């Protein structure tokens, strides 16, 4: 199993399976990440990653800009 973060190179799909966000609230109800679809099992595509600034991720039909620090803590398995 390859464990990488959402900072992987563009154009690859990944399946989110965990990660610690902030105070460890990965999948709690009030969490905006969870509302956007960043929950275990969801599929995401890294659309743009310039190696600088936020990463653009495609998830559940939407394009989401996510700060690098946050993206680094999202664990994704390539599929």
């Amino acid at each position, binding site marked *: 199993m390859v464990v990488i973060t959402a900072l992987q190179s563009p154009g690859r799909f990944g399946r989110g399976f965990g990660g610690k966000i902030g105070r460890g609230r990965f999948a*709690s109800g009030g969490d905006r990440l969870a509302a956007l679809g960043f929950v275990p099992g969801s599929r995401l595509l890294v659309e743009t990653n310039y190696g600088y600034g936020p990463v653009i991720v495609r998830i559940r039909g939407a394009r989401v800009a996510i700060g690098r620090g946050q993206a680094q803590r999202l664990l994704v398995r390539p599929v």
Partner: protein
Amino acid sequence: MLKNPAGNQLQDKHVVLVGRPNVGKSTIFNSLTGLSQHTGNWPGKTVEVATGFARLPDGTPVRIVDLPGTYSLGSPEESDSALDEAVAREYVLETSPDLVVAVVSAAGLQQDLYLVAQLLSLPVPVMVAANMADVAARQGLKVDYRLLSRRLGASVVPMSATHPADIRRLGSAIMAVLQSTRARNAPGAGPLPDPRHPAGIHQWVDQVTYGAIQEESNGITTSQRIDGFLLHPWLGLAFMLAVLAGIFWLTFGVGQPLQEWLETGLVLPVRGLAGRVLSGAPLWLRGLVMDGALAGAGTVITFLPILAIFFAALAILEDLGYLARTAVVMDRFMHSLGLHGKSFIPLFLGFGCNVPAIMGVRTIDSRRGRILTAVLAPLVPCAARMAVLNVIAGVFFGARAPVVVWSLVSLNILSLAALGVVLSRTVLYDPEDRELLMELPPYHLPSLRVTGIVLWHKLWSFLGKAGTVIVCASVVVWALAYFPGGELEGSYLAALGRLIEPVGLLAGLDWRLVLATLSGFVAKENSLATLAVIYGVGSSGVPLGEVLRSAISPPSALAFLVAVMLFMPCAATVAVMRQELKSGRWVALSLLMLLVLSFGAATIAFRLASLIW
């Protein structure tokens, strides 16, 4: 509550709009309610909700409330769920509206139905306005809205908020739901998910949308293609700077001539007229009306063209979807100041005028971000301060003036950065909030009608709130400068200046310079006018520059400039800060910080300069 004599049941029905940021919720609200709206605090809360009245197609009025944009409803167990999320849930539960209209983007249904699923579990009727249906169609998305409606157990209205016909259709749909007797929705897609479990909600949404959304083109959308250029680290930055340069060109190329025209065409004639009307009146009354009230009102009016340009530009950029892109482009840089990328545009607007900068913090979605940005905004040197700086630096430093100007502007920017770093790591520390997390809305053309409505409300609210403060401040400063003797030298204001003088002298500022700094509170450009009055430029006939050069030493002049550049914001800025932050504590704290900062920096500048000269 008003009773309709005809006994119309729809009288005073209460409809609430809920939705994510950037789905066009405010556009729908503005289109439905037009100019009949007001913003006010929800009793007991620090959150502002906009309320307006709309007429349904059959002519009955409905009260429409626009809640702050939210991604989810949060959950009752989580006390730390973001403020806006808690607001939407609490508002709906506490006021039990007659109907909740969930505004979603037809181009992002998989995302937006999350909120709808949570809303459906509340004991209120819910309907869905699927906005940007045209954008979805252009992206090659085929949506079966009837199937969605059946599965959600709620009516779904595909629409585009910029088309008046669609707004009328939404009105009819609202009327139909209000007339039906159903108390809550019965989803056809099976039992509702537990609103506290995100993964379960997403699964339910997948069931609802399965087969109802078909993506015809699997290729790259227009928005993605545009973003390849606009989000590029260097090309995107260059484009953004060009856009900002365009806004500034509009401000100075169109706004300033308009401002001067208002000054000569409206303000001066009115003052002249008042002067003739009051020619027989006592001197103090003439002073009160002309130098106090009318001078203040004149300042307010001449502010308007520049504010209108800034607000219109901001509204159009936001509606286009471009504001979200500037946040991405600037995120990395702003991050180092403890800020979001979203704070960049408001702060940048501050170079023209701090007032739109602070009114622009509304586009930032966290309260912490709004506070931090508004507190830092007064450190952006506005055009009025630059005018004072250029004039005084030219008088005292001759050929070295550009260096002085450049250094002082840099001092402001560095102070802003330093204060941002300190505040975001101490009082306003929140590691979670500093991360950018934002949906990129598809680009779409803004509606000029809605931009006009937004502009009207912003200017009106500025005139009402900030205008009153400026006119009052102008009258108070005039009175302090006039009484008891009728001249500035012996006035209360001069006495105040002399009282502070011992402290001011630490920074080389005598009572006159202290006074000039203080008078900048009404409007920054007043500092120059006050200097002219104190040094009696009008009576002696000697130009201001020569008078000042003979009376003030260069180190004192430098200290004065530092104080003017860093010192408290003008009355208009303070008024809008109070209005946007809804917290007297933060306004007071920010003024105190600026006072300490400006005085400290002025003292250091004076001491260092004294060693050189």
